[in-house]
C-alpha cells in the first residue's frame, strides 16, 4: 500500500470503458451472470450503484430453500428451489451450511394445513419427514413447548455475500472481468435499436464516464424497472414488497425453523453462522431508496416469532434490516405474498432493442438458474455457442472471500497464532491481517475502500457492538498504515457508524441500549463525530 487508492482518479485518463457485456446490478444474480458468461469466455463489467448485495440479495434470511415454503401455493417455484438447492449444496459448499429445516406448528395453528404438508412436499419431490414434538424439542431446545407438529426438510443456509464475492472473484480469475462498485447508470445512448453506451457516474467521486458493451444486462433487482425505463423500455412491471428482518445476538437454533402455515409475518428463523435471522414482514411499498425497518414491523416479527420460539421475546437483537423484493406483477391488485416468486427474463425486442435484456424477480435460491437463462440469451445474441456450465463446475473457494464467513476469521487467526496480528474487531474476531488482505485484494478494492466496504467483505462490525469499537480501531489501523492521510478516515468512521445504526435503530432495547449508550458517548460525546463539520471554526475538524 505504498500509494493510497484515495489518491487515484476514478478512471485513469479514460472516460470510456469497454467490455463484451455490461451487467448492471451487483446482486447475486448479476454476480452469477458475470461468472456464467466468463465461463463461456465472454468478458463482462459488473457495476452497482452501491456495492455487492446492497439490495434484496443482502437483505434476506440467507435461506437456501428446500422448496417447502412454497409447496402449498407455488409448486413451480418449489420445484425450482429443490433443484437449485441441490446444485448449490454440491457446487458451492463453502457458501452453504447444511442445517436442515424444520416446519413446526404450535397450538392454535391450522392443523388441517399441517396434515397436508407432506403431500404438498411429495408433489414437488421434496423430502419431508415427520418427527415427534419431543424429538423436535430435543433437536431445538428453544422451540415452544406448545409444539404440535414438526417436519424435517432439506432447507439450508447460504451466505449471499460470499456467494456474490466468489462469483465475482471467479469471473475475474477466468478472464479479467471487472467489478466496479459505486457506479450508477445515469442514461443509455441508443442508436438504431441498439444501446451504444451506458452513461455512468462514479458515486464516490461524481466523475461521469461511458461504458461501451456489445450486450447490456439489467440485473437491477428491485431497481430493474427504473433501469429499463432509462433505456425506454416499459415492459418491466414490478411489485415492490418490503420485508423486514431481525438479527439476534447469537445463534438460537441449529436448523432453519419455519412456521407450518401459509406464509405470514415472523414465521422463519434462519441461522446465519453465529447469529439467527428472524423474519419477515411483508408490506407493499413504492419506495425503493429509503426503506427502513419500522418499530411496528419489528414488534410484529418478535411477537409472531415468539409463538414458535418463546426465547425470541427476550433475545438480544443486534440488527434489523429491510429490503425491497421485486415481485413480478402478473395480475393487478395482488398482494405481495400472493405474487409469484418466479422470475422473468425480458429480451426487450418488443421495445425495439436487440442488445438489452432484463432479469428480475426470483429469489436467492434460484439465482444460478436466473443467471443461466440470462447468459443463454446474451451468449446467443453474441453468437457464442458455449453451453452453461454453472450446474457442473464447482465455485472455487476463493481466499479473498474467506473473511465473510461467520466464525472463520477467528479460526484462521487462532491457527496462525501470531501475537502481532492483533484483533481489530473483537466481537467477530477479525484481525489486522484480514483488513490488510481485504484492502489489498478483495473484489472492488480497486476503487476507494471505506469502512463500510471492509465490513461488507468481512465480519467486522457484525457482532454485538455493531462496529462501534472496531470502526475506531480499524480506522486507527488504516491511519497507521498510511491508507488514510487526512480527515477522510473521520468521515468514513462517521458514515460507517451512521450506516450500521440504520440497522440498529429499531432494535435498541435491553442489552443493546447499554451498548449503544456507550457507543454514542464515545462517538459523539468524546470524538465529536456529530460535529465534524461544525460551524464553529475552532472546532470544525473537516477543513
Amino acid at each position, binding site marked *: 500500500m505504498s500509494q493510497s487508492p484515495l489518491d487515484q482518479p476514478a478512471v485513469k485518463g479514460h472516460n470510456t470503458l469497454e467490455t463484451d457485456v455490461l451487467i448492471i446490478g451487483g446482486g447475486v444474480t448479476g454476480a452469477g451472470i458475470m461468472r456464467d458468461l466468463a465461463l463461456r469466455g465472454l468478458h463482462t463489467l459488473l457495476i452497482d450503484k452501491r456495492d455487492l448485495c446492497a439490495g434484496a440479495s443482502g437483505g434476506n434470511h440467507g435461506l437456501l430453500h428446500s422448496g417447502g415454503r412454497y409447496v402449498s401455493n407455488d409448486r413451480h417455484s418449489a420445484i425450482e428451489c429443490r433443484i437449485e438447492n441441490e446444485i448449490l449444496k454440491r457446487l458451492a459448499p463453502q457458501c452453504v451450511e447444511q442445517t436442515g429445516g424444520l416446519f413446526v406448528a404450535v397450538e392454535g395453528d391450522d392443523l388441517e394445513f399441517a396434515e397436508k404438508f407432506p403431500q404438498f412436499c411429495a408433489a414437488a419431490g421434496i423430502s419431508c419427514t415427520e418427527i415427534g414434538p419431543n424429538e423436535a424439542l430435543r433437536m431445538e431446545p428453544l422451540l415452544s413447548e406448545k409444539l404440535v407438529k414438526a417436519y424435517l426438510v432439506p432447507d439450508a443456509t447460504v451466505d449471499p455475500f460470499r456467494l456474490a464475492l466468489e462469483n465475482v472473484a471467479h469471473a475475474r480469475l477466468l478472464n479479467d472481468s471487472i467489478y466496479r462498485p459505486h457506479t450508477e447508470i445515469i442514461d443509455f445512448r441508443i442508436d438504431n435499436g441498439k444501446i451504444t453506451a451506458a452513461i455512468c457516474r462514479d458515486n464516490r467521486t461524481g466523475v461521469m464516464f461511458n461504458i461501451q458493451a456489445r450486450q447490456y444486462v439489467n440485473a437491477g433487482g428491485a431497481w430493474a424497472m427504473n433501469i429499463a425505463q432509462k433505456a425506454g423500455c416499459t415492459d418491466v412491471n414490478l411489485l415492490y414488497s418490503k420485508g423486514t428482518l431481525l438479527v439476534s445476538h447469537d445463534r438460537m437454533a441449529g436448523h432453519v425453523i419455519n412456521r407450518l402455515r401459509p406464509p405470514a409475518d415472523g414465521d422463519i428463523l434462519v441461522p446465519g453462522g453465529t447469529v439467527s435471522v428472524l423474519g419477515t414482514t411483508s408490506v407493499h411499498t413504492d419506495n425503493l431508496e429509503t426503506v*427502513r425497518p419500522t*418499530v*411496528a414491523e419489528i*414488534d410484529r416479527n*418478535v411477537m409472531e416469532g415468539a409463538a414458535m420460539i418463546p426465547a425470541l*421475546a427476550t433475545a438480544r437483537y443486534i440488527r434489523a434490516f429491510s429490503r425491497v423484493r421485486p415481485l413480478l406483477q402478473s395480475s393487478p391488485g395482488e398482494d405481495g405474498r400472493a405474487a409469484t416468486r418466479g422470475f422473468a427474463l425480458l429480451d426487450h425486442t418488443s421495445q425495439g432493442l436487440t442488445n438489452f435484456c432484463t432479469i428480475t424477480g426470483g429469489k436467492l435460491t434460484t439465482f444460478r438458474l436466473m443467471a443461466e437463462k440470462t447468459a443463454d440469451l446474451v451468449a446467443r445474441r453474441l453468437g457464442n455457442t458455449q453451453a452453461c456450465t454453472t450446474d457442473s463446475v464447482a465455485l472455487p473457494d476463493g481466499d479473498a472471500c474467506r473473511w465473510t464467513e461467520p466464525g472463520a476469521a477467528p479460526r484462521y487467526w487462532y491457527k496462525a497464532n501470531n*501475537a*502481532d496480528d*492483533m*484483533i*481489530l474487531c473483537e466481537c467477530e474476531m477479525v484481525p489486522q491481517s484480514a483488513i490488510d488482505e481485504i484492502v489489498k485484494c478483495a473484489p472492488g478494492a480497486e476503487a476507494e475502500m471505506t469502512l463500510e466496504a471492509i465490513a461488507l467483505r468481512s465480519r467486522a462490525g457484525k457482532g454485538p457492538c455493531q462496529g462501534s*469499537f472496531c470502526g*475506531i*480501531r480499524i*480506522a*486507527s*489501523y488504516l*491511519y*497507521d498504515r*498510511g491508507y*488514510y*492521510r*487526512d*480527515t477522510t*478516515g*473521520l468521515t468514513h468512521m*462517521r458514515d460507517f*457508524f*451512521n450506516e450500521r*445504526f*440504520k440497522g440498529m*435503530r*429499531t432494535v*435498541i*432495547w*435491553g442489552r443493546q*441500549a*447499554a451498548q449503544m*449508550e*456507550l457507543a*454514542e*458517548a*464515545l*462517538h*459523539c*460525546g*468524546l*470524538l*465529536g*463525530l*456529530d*460535529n*465534524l463539520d*461544525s*460551524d*464553529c471554526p*475552532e*472546532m470544525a*475538524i473537516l*477543513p
Partner: protein
Amino acid sequence: MKEETRHFETELAVVGSGLAGCAASIFALNRKIKIAQVGNTGAVAYTTGYLDLLGAVEESSKAVENPWDGLELLKKSHPDHPLSHIPAQDIAEGFRQFTTFLGESGIAYTGPQETNITALTPAGTLKKTLCVPATMAAGPQAFAAQRPCVIIDFHGLKGFSAREVVANLRHKWPQLTAARVDFPDMEKGEIYPEVMARALEVAATRTRLAELLREAAGEIKTIGLPALLGMHTPDLVRSELERLTGLTIFEIPTMPPSVPGIRLREMFEQVFPQKGITLIPQQKITALSFAPDRAQLNLRDNYGPIVIHAKAVILATGRFLSGGLEAHITGITEPLLDLPVHQPPSRTDWYREQYTDRQGHLIHKAGIEIDASCRPLGKNGTPYHERLFAAGIILAHQDWIRGRSGAGIAIATAYKAVQAAEDLLHARI
C-alpha cells in the same frame, strides 16, 4: 452451613458508584455525614478523565465556549434541564470540592475556570470540557500556543494512532508530528494501556521509557502520549518522566478500556473506606424499601447477604449502561423501585433516523423526574418517599452525551441532592 447476614447502619446510603454516586459521597463526607455506598463497577471505568460541565448546546451540538454563559442560555431554552435548577455558584462549588478531593487523593485536576478548555481526543478531534486531569493539561496548552509537538504511540496498542491524531489535527496545528516507540519489555503482541500504566509505576520502567521518549522527540520539547502515565500516582509518573526527559509531557485519553477511568475507580475504592465510608463495591442492590423512619437496602456479595439501614438514600444508578434504567421492547423502566420514567410515547421516537443527527436522540431525554428537593416523583406525581433523593444522568430532560455534560449533571445534581438529604437528616434524625 449458616450464612450470616451482615448489617450496616448509616445516615446516608448512596446507590451507585459512578461519578454521581462518588460525587455524592464526597459532598456528604465534606458535610460529615455518615455514608454507605454500594453499586457495581459502573461506567466510571469508561470515562476519559475529562470533566465536562456543558460542552455543547443540546439539539445543535454547537460548541459552548463559556459554560457559565451556556447555563444561563440553557435556563431559557431548557427550563426542565437538571442543570437549570441549580445555581451556578453551587455548580462551581461542586466542581471545586470534587476536583479538590481528587487532587488530595492523588489525581490532580485543573479547577473549574471561566471558560471551557479545548481538549484533545484520540481521533485528533477537539472537545470542550471544564476540568482535565493535570496529566492532560499541557496538551490543550501546547495546542493553544501552537508549540511544536510530537504525538507518540506504542507498538501493540490498538485504537490509538499518533498518525491519526496528526492527520486530523494538522491543519489546525501544523507543528504536530507523529512517532512510534516500543514500550520497554513489551515489544511483542498486544498491550493494553492499563498494563503500561501499571508498569510505569515502577521507576525502572520509567527510566527505560524516558530514554525512548527523548529519542523519539528529537529536537522537539513537547510530547503527547496516550493516557497511560501511571495508575495510582499519575502526577508523579508524569513529573518523573518530565524530569528524566527534560520534555513537557501530556496525555490524550484513549478509547475504552482506558486508564483515566480505571484510575478514578481504583482511587475511589481506595480512599473512600479510609475516609470512613462503608463501601461495598461491585455489588448491585437487589431491593430498596422504605419504612417511615428508615430505608433498607438489600444486597449480597460472594460471602453472603448484606443489609444496610439508612436515614436517607441517594439514587445515582445511572442509565442503561449501568442499569439505572432499563429499555424494554415496550418501554423504559426504572428497575429498582419502578419509579415512573418520563419517556417518548413510543419506541419509534427513541432514536432519530440518522445516528449522528445533531439534534440528538430522544431516548436520552428519558429519565426520572424530581421535585425541587431532588426527590424522585412517584406514580401520583408526588415524591416517592421523603427519604429518597436522586442524582446523575438517571434524571430526565437532559442529553448528557450531546450536551457534553455528563460530569456536570453528575456533580451538580449530587451536590444538590446531598444538600437536600442533609436538610432531612438535620431536621429529623
